[in-house]
């Protein structure tokens, strides 16, 4: 059969990792085709007028942490291609029911002053952890995000010789909850740190061996930034970088099969019957199961690998989102105590103690919606007014939930979520009003929910609504993500590589899986690297 097109490389999936891998390869002079199942490129970089025209809602990722340290941002000149960022001074706010609260700032001294009003000891502990780990994070941890994960013996061997390294290894044997309990005394501080790990990063408090991420958050080596015009603007910049490098992107092109001949990936077939030939390699930037179960076919794999693949653990929780079109910005009661609360980028509303958290997780693990509705909230138009019509605002509320619901009528997960959607939306708004009483019906022009079922319908790689594309448990991170034999982005199939978020370092807009995949492909095929490798 004649191929519809022949390219050096075919990348499946135009999420940010696919676009990044494809752009590095295109700029080596290779011909590169990206095939995207959806109409829009960008994956989780989604901005839509979900409530009403003129109100921009970032349905998935709404802030980006690693722009300052992300090699692709620099190498692909994404700022020149139109990506602009705003870095709010006040990164996090935790208002409390008793009217107090605290804020985390880019300015370390401001953070300490704010925490000290709740606990002087915690302010000191926060400063100590931040100062003690910052250099280590900058020089060891962040570069580690952007390289293929080395085997554990290399890591421990290198770390155990320095005091910070040894301590990092120690934290790697604890849970985040243990580290937080040992470091801070105030429950609100403890809960706030744990919430920052869980909702946007997928690391739950009781995950054994994940304690070392606590200093990553506290050291603030990552700074959360808002993409001007919405997160999808970064997708446009990536698209421009790719197309300007001569790349070809096809939307609404659903891959159904990776053609394998003599254990080598030869190209891909689409749902509409077209087939594209890849002369050098196929790179999958989709999900693990999609890649192997649907595109490759389990019959092409060693049964032992198949079993291990199918045992890959998915996320333990999903997010129920409420997107708001607002006539006015929220005014938090606790702003009387700390005015900076009203201008924070991210807000933790309702998880005031680690126990609140533990209760919610217990419910989620029993496939129930937690009784206590806590919110991870943001009001992006406060920072980037272009995301709402003049005088209006946008808001988003996320609450952690299970994907499967027990005891709810409905044939499918979609039906079940449709059944509970209205009620849960109302509960989210009720929680918001506890902390920001002006968020009554007059202030809300429109509120629309995005359920876990919606997430998985839109993004099949976000299986069961899991935005992290695989649980970040100790046995599924670093050298073990997704499995040791796949952790170097190569597969048992020749010329088939992996660039999805199921690879190290995981989900979120880091660009790392795509970046690392491009390095590995370039190394294997002897491509001249036009960039300076991190």
């Amino acid at each position, binding site marked *: 059969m004649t191929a519809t097109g022949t390219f050096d490389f075919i990348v499946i999936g135009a999420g940010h990792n696919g676009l990044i891998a494809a752009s590095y390869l295109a700029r080596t002079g290779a011909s590169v085709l990206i095939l995207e199942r959806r109409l829009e490129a960008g994956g989780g970089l989604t901005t839509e007028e979900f409530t009403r025209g003129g109100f921009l809602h970032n349905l998935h990722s709404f802030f980006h942490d690693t722009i300052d340290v992300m090699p692709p941002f620099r190498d692909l000149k994404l700022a020149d291609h139109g990506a602009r960022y705003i870095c709010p001074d006040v990164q996090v706010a935790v208002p409390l029911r008793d009217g107090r609260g605290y804020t985390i700032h880019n300015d370390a001294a401001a953070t300490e002053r704010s925490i000290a009003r709740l606990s002087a000891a915690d302010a000191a502990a926060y400063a100590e952890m931040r100062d003690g780990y910052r250099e280590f994070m900058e020089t060891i941890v962040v570069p580690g995000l952007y390289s293929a994960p080395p085997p554990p013996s290399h890591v421990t061997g290198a770390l155990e010789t320095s005091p910070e390294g040894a301590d990092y290894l120690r934290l790697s044997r604890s849970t985040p909850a243990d580290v937080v309990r040992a470091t801070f005394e105030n429950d609100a501080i403890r809960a706030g740190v744990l919430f920052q790990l869980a909702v946007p990063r997928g690391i739950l408090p009781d995950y054994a061996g994940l304690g070392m991420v606590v200093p990553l958050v506290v050291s603030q080596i990552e700074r959360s930034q808002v993409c001007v015009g*919405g997160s999808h*603007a970064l997708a446009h910049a990536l698209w421009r970088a790719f197309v300007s490098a001569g790349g070809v992107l096809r939307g609404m092109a659903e891959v159904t099969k990776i053609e394998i001949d003599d254990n080598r990936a030869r190209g891909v077939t689409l749902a509409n019957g077209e087939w594209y030939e890849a002369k050098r390699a196929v790179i999958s930037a989709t999900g693990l199961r999609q890649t192997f179960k649907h595109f490759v076919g389990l019959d092409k794999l060693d049964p032992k690998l198949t079993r291990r693949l199918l045992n890959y653990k998915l996320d333990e929780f999903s997010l129920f989102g409420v997107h708001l079109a607002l006539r006015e910005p929220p005014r938090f009661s606790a702003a009387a105590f700390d005015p900076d609360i009203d201008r924070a980028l991210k807000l933790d509303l309702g998880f005031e103690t680690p126990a609140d958290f533990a209760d919610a997780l217990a419910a989620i693990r029993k496939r129930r919606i937690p009784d206590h509705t806590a919110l991870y909230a943001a009001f992006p138009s406060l920072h980037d007014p272009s995301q709402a019509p003049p005088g209006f605002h946008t808001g988003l509320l996320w609450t952690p939930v299970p994907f499967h619901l027990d005891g709810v009528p409905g044939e499918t997960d979609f039906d079940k979520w449709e059944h509970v959607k209205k009620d849960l939306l109302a509960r989210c708004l009720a929680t918001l009003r506890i902390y920001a009483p002006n968020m009554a019906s007059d202030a809300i022009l429109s509120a629309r929910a995005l359920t876990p079922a919606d997430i998985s319908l839109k993004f099949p790689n976000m299986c069961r609504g899991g935005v992290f594309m695989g649980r970040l448990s100790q046995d599924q991170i670093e050298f073990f993500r997704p499995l040791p034999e796949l952790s170097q982005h190569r597969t048992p199939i020749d010329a088939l590589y992996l660039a999805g978020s199921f690879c190290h370092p995981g989900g979120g807009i880091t660009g790392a899986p795509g970046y690392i995949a491009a390095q590995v492909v370039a190394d294997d095929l002897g491509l001249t690297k036009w960039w300076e490798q991190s």
Partner: protein
Amino acid sequence: MNQTYDVIVIGGGHNGLTLALYMAAAKLKVLVLERRHEFGGGLSTEEVTIPGYYHNLHSNFHGIMPFFPPYNDFNLARRGVRYILPEADIGMPLKDGRALILYSDDRRAADSIAAFSERDAEEFLEVRRRLAFHSAEVLGGAFSPPAVSPRQRLFLEEEYGRIFGDDVLDHTAAEWVERHFENPHVRALLLYHMAICGFDVRLPRLAALGIGYLAYLTNWQLCVGGSHHLAHAMGGELLAQGGELLESRGVKQILVESNRAVGVVTVDGTEFRARDAVVSSVDPHQTFLDFLPREALDPTFRKKVEAIRYGHGDVLFGAHVALKEPPHHIASAGHPDIDRTWNLNIGYETPEDLYEHYEEIDRGELPKRPRLNAGVNTLFDPSQAPHGRHTALIWQFAPFEIGERGGAAWDSLGDDYARACVDAWREYAPNMGGDNVLAVHPYTPYDIARKMVNMRRGGFHVAAISHDQAAENRPIPELSGFRAPVTGLYLCGASQHVHGGILSSPGYNCAQVLAEDLGVFDKLPFKSKPWWPAVERWREKMAKIE
């Protein structure tokens, strides 16, 4: 980023992109600035009901594919753009179980008409024959800048008279249709076709326009993967041609120095300089009244701009529907093809049904009995919904302002009215309700104006079509030549000849004018078929009169 360009285009809709593509092809350094977070303007496809269900929020039925000049000149097929022409292109089921279907094959269309009136079937074939002969001239007129002087205007009328027959110029489209066709249902379908092109068929002296639409009557085509696909291809081609395109860059000011447009300032305060031209593809109100300093314009001219009318005959309420199965019409019992007809007239069974809506809208009322322009894209392009599922589009003519309650009343009325529209369809297709309807998303004229600010008062033609805002008068005589009274400032949006809709003619016509002014006309890749020879003939005729 280099902030000095040869040409800066305000607005990244398809007309702005068209103009930019031709200028980039002429090796000028071009920047397009788009206010919204997405470019493409009315080429907008979004998952507004349920993820995986794609809905064309604005243009859905593309009428001149594949004759769209940039499609040919820039080989957009190579960028993955594909169109489908449904065999049963436009039609109407009737309550009594009959159906009138106009197939893309005229012979079959005439057979369907003959069941209503043999005479009308013959007249239909005669009109189509006459228009086929002249269709290149029709496109030629649309794709060349209109004449401006009174002498040229007389010539133009003569020319239209020659094409359409001497008796047409003074008539309304409605009169012409009623004169030529006898059966009320045939009349209704033809008038419906003209009306959804976005003009009030009762307005004087617009018969020629309506007849022009009959030249492309059964050429409604569907962009595979959604209309926004075409925007992606145009944007990608622009980058490949060396042009630049930035979103979320609303313009707040056009810089004028010594009565010359020299650049723009965006709302974030960034200044972009233009050596040769600033071209606005947005509406004349924003261009002249918002972006230019008051003193840059003659007060009489400003008054004329203020008086441009927006939103008449082109204001639509949309309802987007996610479906389990496609509509199954009662009329399909005798006419199975009606279930596979794309552009559907649901309910305008006689011309009076249409006139009744016009009258309600004139009074600022919501039409009480919705009658629809509808279509199910997924019958032809299954990629627009999850496997086996369907999407449906509903358009309903509507007022922008609802009585004294104004446009904001739409915010509370949209949901119910969308349901009422689906119910109106249900009278013709009983499965359009109950469990089969998974979700309905209203899209009101007020939403349209909020989202696409150049579609003032919700009108998709940007300046409403009337005899005094068409052709050599579009949108006012002073601007019909695409040049603004400020040197170096041009207009290429839907307010310009020929009008809105996915035609690209305003962008294409402006490209001709601008290229001549900049001395790069010979560098343009104008090689499109079939109308470019006709455009050349028009251009020669115009030049002789000067």
